[in-house]
């Protein structure tokens, strides 16, 4: 029952905020809905951990929540809530029509992301993933500047091209399942029957889905749209796109792993490792030469998606649990980074790294937030991503996979240097002109978001709560 209500809340919020004439009402409805979703997601997570078999189902199995899905659900719900809170202060609407459209799309986008981990039927999951693109495109182009519209167009064309390729992949997966006599086309049904699948069909399906959805998570060389879309969208949307939309799509690829790994000769792990390392490496070098700080964080998303895929490709429970920790750490940290970047943008009005210098002297709170975000996303101790990156490298070296782990270490170090080089100059540096305009102060909702969003970034680096650790281990065991 919780699961059904969980899906209905954003739809209701979309309707209410879409029809209301008042900007405050739309914003309040969205925020209340997001908070309720977050609360219910935590309730659902507790019940999944304690349920026998660790699965919760509703509607006769048409909706089902499994540990890995639970993790994604929690992340989507949390970031959705902080993004709704940030929107309240950040989006300064000129006219009520724009406000309606923003919150309508915002809630529909949240709905599509919440559905992905809840549906056990892969063909419907494909539709949900396609909807995440369709509902977020108008948000990316929301500011209707030349750049925003260009980013939105690139986003829709490249990701939907990928989606069509992935659709063929899913149809071939269906074909393989029918050949193997599977009657239940669900993740669980497919995993159970996987050893009987035809290797050729399964491999083709896997590669098509990896490449198709790889476009959506920004795998090099299909990443070109990502820095554009993830930097041109309004900041709360950037946090959702970079923090959790990519994570939700990555989830689909991770759900395929137990199926493809059950059949010898597919070498799924090698595919993941190679794609992952190429993405990390390319992103690390691109990070060195960015000029726009929102693009900086967008490229870092490419880097982290690559790290997670590579870690998943290393195989074994220790690498898998580290990959999931990285997934969680990335979602909470990256959304926080975008809130900090959005605050800088509100204060200075420029996205150019070179024009922002010494922000900590003008606005200590924003400066500290940006510094914390930069350190955390680059993987400095004591933050969550340091812990997970360390565990991934440890797992890699312990397995004796020195080339992969060594390359990963080098790329992570380059990315660290690149990010900190830009961020430290923005925070402490002195320039000819200090921050341009600075008469403005940050809206209260943005300050509140920064405070709420930083909590998991810090806490997860020091201490992982017992139940949460249990959830990660359960999810890793199912990969």
């Amino acid at each position, binding site marked *: 029952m919780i699961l059904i209500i969980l899906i209905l809340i954003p739809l209701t919020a979309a309707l209410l905020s879409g029809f209301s004439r008042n900007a405050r009402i739309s914003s309040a409805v969205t925020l209340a809905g997001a908070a309720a979703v977050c609360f219910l997601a935590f309730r659902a997570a507790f019940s999944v951990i304690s349920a026998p078999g660790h699965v919760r189902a509703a509607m006769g199995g048409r909706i089902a929540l499994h540990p890995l899905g639970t993790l994604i659900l929690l992340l989507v719900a949390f970031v959705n809530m902080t993004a709704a809170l940030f929107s309240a202060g950040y989006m300064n609407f000129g006219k009520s029509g724009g406000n309606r459209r923003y919150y309508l799309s915002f809630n529909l986008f949240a709905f599509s992301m919440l559905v992905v981990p809840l549906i056990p039927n892969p*063909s*419907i999951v494909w539709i949900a993933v396609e909807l995440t693109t*369709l509902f977020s495109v108008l948000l990316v182009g929301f500011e*209707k500047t030349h750049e925003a*519209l260009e980013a939105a167009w690139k986003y829709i064309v490249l990701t939907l091209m990928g989606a*069509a390729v992935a*659709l063929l992949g899913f*149809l*071939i997966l269906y074909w393989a399942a029918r050949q193997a006599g599977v009657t239940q*086309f669900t993740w669980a049904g497919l995993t159970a029957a996987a050893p009987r699948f035809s290797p050729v069909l399964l491999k083709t399906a896997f590669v098509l889905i990896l490449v198709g959805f790889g476009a959506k998570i920004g795998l090099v060389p299909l990443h070109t749209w990502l820095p554009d879309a993830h930097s041109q969208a309004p900041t709360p949307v950037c946090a959702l796109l970079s923090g959790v939309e990519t994570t939700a799509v990555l989830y689909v690829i991770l759900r395929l792993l137990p199926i493809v790994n059950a059949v010898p000769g597919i070498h799924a792990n090698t595919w993941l490792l190679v794609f992952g390392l190429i993405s990390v490496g390319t992103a690390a070098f691109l990070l060195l030469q960015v000029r726009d700080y929102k693009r900086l964080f967008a490229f870092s998303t490419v880097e982290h998606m690559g790290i997670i895929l590579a870690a998943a490709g290393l195989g074994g429970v220790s690498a898998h649990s580290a990959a999931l920790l990285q997934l969680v750490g990335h979602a909470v940290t990256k959304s926080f980074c975008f809130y900090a970047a959005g605050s800088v943008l509100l204060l200075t009005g420029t996205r150019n790294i070179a024009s922002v210098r010494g922000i900590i002297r003008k606005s200590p709170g924003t400066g500290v937030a940006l510094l914390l975000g930069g350190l955390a996303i680059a993987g400095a101790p004591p933050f969550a991503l340091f812990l997970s990156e360390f565990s991934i490298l440890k797992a890699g070296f312990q397995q004796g996979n020195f080339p992969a782990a060594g390359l990963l270490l080098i790329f992570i170090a380059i990315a660290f240097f690149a990010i900190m080089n830009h961020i430290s100059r923005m925070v402490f540096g002195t320039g000819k002109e200090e921050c341009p305009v600075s008469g403005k102060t940050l809206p209260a909702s943005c300050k509140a978001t920064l405070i709420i969003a930083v909590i998991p970034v810090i806490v997860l680096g020091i201490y992982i709560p017992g139940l949460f650790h249990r959830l990660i281990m359960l999810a890793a065991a199912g990969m």
Partner: protein
Amino acid sequence: MSFFEHMSPFVGNLNALAGGLFIIAAFGIVAARQIRAGLRFFIFQSIFLAASAFLLGISTASIHLMAVAAINLISKVFLLPWLLGHLIPEKIYTRREITQAVSIPTSLIVALMLTIGAYFFSQPLLKAAALPAVLRINLPIGLAGILLGAYTLTVRREAVPQLLGLLSMENGAFFAGIAIAPDLPLIAELALAFDILILTFVVGVLTRSVEKKIGTTAVGSLTKLREEPHK
């Protein structure tokens, strides 16, 4: 697989004909100079997709596939052009595309090679899974449809032809799908049709915004966003 055993050769030939016309329509989308002509080719392609689903439905006495044919016909042949007509101003349709990245004769040759490539690529798959002879053409043709759609997307610069490229990629996936995954749940088929309408709506709205803001719908020439400094 005895599922398709009773398919008569006559229906099989008709299905092959639908497949051939489907791919010709895809070539039409690649080559059409006028935007309206491209849209017509897309509608034809959708009709042939529905025809193939209908024929496979007859031969297997599957109400399901006939419903798929009906859903495709309603959503793509009637609702989609209607929606597009409402969203996109008339003057765009009559526009001729002058600046194509690749000349049309070259495009047709590339399209032909892609089609041949699709045929060879699908052979190992067909070998791996038993599929009745009459259904075997759906996979290579569907795959060719996807490749030709992707090619259209990369060489076209106008917004509507790019949309048609996206839609024809999905048509290609469906064309293969009716043969290899004929019993996809009906809810998925309905959701897919709905999804295509949302896609058309979103692209239509975006195209309108682009035209209003930038004054052109040649989206392929938007190149402000890149790493090098500009202005």
